[in-house]
């Protein structure tokens, strides 16, 4: 089976500045792929290129089998995306948000109805269906945003620092959702700053100064760097970074 994401020397320049330099990696179907790096290392730039939000300067990449230069609209049919700001509409209710996002992915009315009931049950938000999103606690919003990002059953879901600012229990619950999605065959591409989350991934890549400095399973990385946990692996790689964070 071909990889779901495949990049070859993918590069993005902003003038003189090389934000992402010759990235080459593959992500397999159903994999949970951790994308780590210090602030300003180039994670978000790389992710935006893969989502079709930003055109690469050079190199090649395909996402879900489609080219990131010419077939961005095709890519968008097949991916889900959740950003740091988890883009729900504050002034719409939970059900209305689900309905809207399902609708713009072209789902039929019956399908939307069924999906809404299913999601609300899964998230245990049945009672809050008619609550405005702005009234929800942060953790619930995140879970809802994730569910909305995969409402159309995409091949891949991109998560950009999805769990910022919530307690460990809520984070754990969030990862349960990720595992559930992965079990259904959805590929998960996730950036994070939490090293315990990195341990949950099948494979992890660590970016430093715009290049991929390491890429392997957490176990192998720990072995390679002779470290007790991912935190030490990360520190080992990132402390020599020249770029200042943001």
């Amino acid at each position, binding site marked *: 089976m071909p990889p779901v994401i495949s990049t070859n020397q993918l590069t993005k320049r902003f003038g003189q500045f090389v934000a992402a330099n010759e990235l080459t990696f593959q992500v397999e179907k159903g994999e949970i792929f951790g994308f780590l790096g210090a602030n300003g290392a180039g994670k978000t730039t790389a992710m935006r290129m893969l989502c079709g939000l930003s055109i690469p300067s050079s190199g090649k990449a395909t996402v879900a089998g489609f080219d990131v230069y010419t077939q961005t609209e095709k890519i968008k*049919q097949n*991916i889900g995306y959740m950003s740091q700001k988890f883009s729900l509409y504050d002034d719409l209710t939970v059900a209305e948000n689900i309905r809207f996002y399902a609708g713009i992915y072209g789902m039929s009315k019956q399908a939307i109805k069924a999906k809404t009931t299913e999601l609300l049950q899964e998230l245990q938000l049945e009672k809050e269906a008619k609550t405005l999103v702005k009234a929800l606690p942060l953790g619930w919003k995140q879970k809802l945003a994730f569910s909305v990002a995969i409402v159309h059953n995409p091949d891949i879901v991109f998560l950009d620092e999805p769990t910022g600012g919530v307690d460990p229990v809520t984070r754990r619950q969030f990862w349960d959702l990720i595992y559930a999605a992965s079990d259904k065959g959805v590929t998960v591409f996730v950036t994070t700053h939490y090293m315990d989350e990195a341990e949950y991934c099948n494979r992890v890549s660590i970016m430093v100064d715009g290049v991929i400095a390491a890429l392997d399973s957490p176990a192998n990385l720990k072995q390679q760097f002779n470290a007790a946990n991912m935190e030490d692996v990360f520190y080992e790689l990132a402390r020599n970074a020249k770029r200042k964070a943001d």
Partner: protein
Amino acid sequence: MKTLIFLLEKEFRQILRNRQILMTLLIAPLIQLILLPLAADYSVKNISLAVVDNDHSPFSQRLINKITASGHFRLTGYATSYPEALKMVEQDKADIALQIPIHFERDLVRENNKQLYIAINAIEGTKANLGGAYLASIIRNYNDDIRLRWQSATPSTPPQIEAVSSNWYNPLLNFKLYMVPAILVVLITAIAAMQSAFNIVQEKESGTIEQINVTPIKKHIFILGKMIPFLVLGIILFTLGLLVGWLFYGVVPVGSLLVLYASLIVYLFAMLGLGLLLATYSATQQQSMSLAFFFINIFNMMSGVFTAVDSMPGWAQTIVSTFPPSHFIKIMRMVVLKGSGFSDIAWPLTAMALIGLFLNTWAVLNYRKTS
């Protein structure tokens, strides 16, 4: 097409949910439409006049009576000297100073010729213009009067041409008939251009636009989804505005409503295009507001609402012809007052459509889903 319906559903939900904004959008314009035409009254009826009567003759007295009886002038006071009267003008106590020189009556009778001195505060052009013209015509009439009285038997009556004037379309010279349609346009302009700009920038600021950008939604569908709600809102506001105009000012369009609404849609298309364009250039609500304010303010002053576009210099008229409101205001007044039809408004309507097409194309090209 199906996605468009979902977009629209979402937009309408958001608009209807935000009561504070909705009220500002609908109620504030209507209140203004009810009140402000009362303020827009150019008719010159209260020109204050300072008089220096150095003659104190029956002639001078009759002249002053004639002037005050005309209804256009209000005698604010007699000054003892011309400088004193000028001082009254300086302090805005009088708009016009009139001096009747000494021996006015005697010289007129004996020498058949006498001067009158008039000083007008010309800072306010309209008042000065009209005030001067009224005063001149009163003096002319007065002149004819005294001639008739003084020498009822004139040796030879000179040939007289009389100009009989009539006022079409607004015989009572009701200024409100002229202002109500224009003020309605001003209010709709502000709403259309600002709200569409705000709306998109808000999605930018809150980050939801990022989410939309990763969906397969087509650019033009998204933009349509943003425009249609405000188009509907504009039409509702316009309809309410027409009702207010009818109820409060008795403004009933002489022309067909079809022509009015067709023009309105073309106009909204252009103004919403402007809003979208401004949104693509702004990152924050504050920026979009400053930009929108810039244009709206210039539109208000230059589009012929208050001063005639025809009296502007040529270069200014060229600039104004690129402003959609100038065309729509013209159309409104033509259709509402004169009953002009499609063939009469063909040119402004086409101009508006072209400007709209240009603005929208620009906005769509400038709106990027990818960078």
